[in-house]
């Protein structure tokens, strides 16, 4: 099953490689990984999307907790949460495609943030599956380039991950 694991990590040199190294050394898979400092500059927040049986996910959280630089670990997908991912996608937009691409971006509530005579850059935010759906909805030949941030997640309501 797919899980979203949130980690508070000491903002130290090499801390990220400990997390990434743990996943490769123990054969866990990483679908996406995002990382950036938090409002407290001594801490980074990581979001990892991974998948595995309940036993594997239990081991992943235990092994993460063992890393000295890891301050807190939460499996966001255990309870109500919100996930978002940002995608920038450059698509060919000339001739009849120009209007079609614009319409599609509107339907997905994307924003066109760069325009040339021949292409658009569209900014799109949503769950990973929404971004997948947008890519599916556009003619594959029109896609010039995509870049995705990977999933960021946060618990709903009173669920707070903080030191």
């Amino acid at each position: 099953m797919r899980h979203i694991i949130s980690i508070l990590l000491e903002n130290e040199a090499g801390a990220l490689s400990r997390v990434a190294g743990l996943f490769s050394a123990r054969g866990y898979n990483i679908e996406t990984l995002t990382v950036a400092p938090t409002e407290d500059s001594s801490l980074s927040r990581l979001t990892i999307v991974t998948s595995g049986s309940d036993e594997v996910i239990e081991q992943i959280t235990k092994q993460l907790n063992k890393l000295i630089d890891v301050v807190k670990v939460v499996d966001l997908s255990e309870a109500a949460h919100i996930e978002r991912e940002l995608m920038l996608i450059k698509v060919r937009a000339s001739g009849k495609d120009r209007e079609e691409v614009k319409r599609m971006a509107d339907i997905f509530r994307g924003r066109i943030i760069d325009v040339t005579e021949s292409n658009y850059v569209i900014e799109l935010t949503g769950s990973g599956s929404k971004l997948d759906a947008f890519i599916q909805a556009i003619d594959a030949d029109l896609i010039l380039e995509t870049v995705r941030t990977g999933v960021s997640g946060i618990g709903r309501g009173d669920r707070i991950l903080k030191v």
Partner: protein
Amino acid sequence: MMTTMTMMTGAEIVIRCLQEEKVEYVFGYPGGAVLHLYDELFKQDKVKHVLVRHEQAAVHAADGLARSSHKVGVALVTSGPGATNAVTGIATAYMDSIPLVIITGQVPSYYIGQDAFQECDTVGITRPCVKHNFLVKDVRDIAMTMKKAFYIASSGRPGPVVVDIPKDITAAKCKFDYPQSVQMRSYNPVVKGHLGQIKKAVQLLLGAKRPMIYTGGGVILSNAAEQLATLTRRLGFPITNTLMGLGAYPATDAQFLGMPGMHGTLEANMAMQNCDVLLAIGARFDDRVIGNPENFASLPRKIIHVDIDPSSISKRVRVDVPIVGNVPDVLDEMIKLLEAEHAKTDIADWWKEIDGWRSKQCMKYTMKDVIMPQFVIEKLWELTEGNAIVTSDVGQHQMWAAQYYKFDQPRRWLNSGGLGTMGVGLPYAMGAALANPDKQIACVTGEGSIQMCIQELSTAKQFRLPIKIINLNNRYLGMVRQWQEMFHGSRYAESYMDSLPDFVKLAEAYGHVGIRVERPEDVEGALKRAFVDHKDDLVFLDILTDREANVFPMVAAGKGLSEMILAEDL
């Protein structure tokens, strides 16, 4: 508080930190990046330096000191090849949870990343085989980093910690103030177990009809042998100690069933397999202990698992009552609860069943005209009255030592159980000899393993370490040969040891005593010569043993504990 307002160099600070931590011995090898550190070592005499002949042995020796003494072992090596040579030692300690601090020199910080002479990414290379590591980038961080290193290495589930220090940082100056304590928001090892869980465990134990206690290295590392003995005797249950846990419970006691696992006894394995309640303490259900986990799980039993590391619990087998905590603390609670209980478990039928397995005498072997390796270990045990510290390398000799030397006390048996590193035996013996000058030290090895760190005979001479090397020489890489015989149609690919040195002459060349033993009737006399006549010398006993003796009983890799091969089956 210890405060000095004078400025000190980074190197001086490192050595002062070692003094503050009461480090008696540092095992190391000098080189360019650690010259400032060696200069400071030279200027003081509290911390003694042991010059090894290869960095791998520095870490193994520090590891042997730690295993035999419950202290943190310390090694010091230079950058680049010094650090990479140390990696095998670090990984060995990591797999067996041994507390070490390894100080590695690094090229000057302003050269890092430029492929400087003797540069390697030590923190990167060691990351997967350390509990934690540090690259010190500021001289003002040295003291706190050293404090953290010792704290992390020795607390919780212990392990090796690497402190990588660039050369310019050891030359830079700042004030020295050694922190008395350390607080880390991201590292707070658990001590006390959950009382509710412990109560549940005690009820399960009291209701058991076919109980079994199975303990591992965690009992040794946490110094819980006393509590374990009290608990086991109060319960009257059978007990087994893993390869890493030998000595936690007296092997000569009637409740002890021997070692479990791939080369465990029939009674220990059958009791592990057929029990209805299994109390696992500081053990991790390793593949060499329980064999195939599916086979192990095929019989219903309740499992109570006490361990300080949550990730060891429910890793390979499902556990019914997990208890995360420091082993002696948890056992104290259990004993307290049991004392309040009057219920006595009646497990006479279970003991009858166990005695049935015992009566098979799975460890018996047949004497021949040539020396049987098992016989040598039995004689060693007799002569040393079971009190020696025995180190081993890896292979058949290791299993025979574990099977036939009956360890009654903890920290007397040092071997590489997890990583299975050939070559640890001699350096382990060096560390053990320095930490235990009053004890007899025997290194049980084979002609394959001993050659992996043979250069340390030189170190042992320099520091006058009276180690007795028991070389069970069968002219084969015995364990490899045994597997080839059993599973590869007796095709002995590269497992024959050709062109062996004359070990007696070799020992003599290093300035030691060498004795060759070729007949069974000479074994006892040779051991006496080594341990009595040459009490203060290193003696190399080159014992020519039965060439094709195999280690039995055996559970083949991937098989279940109930699928044992006994010597008599063949």
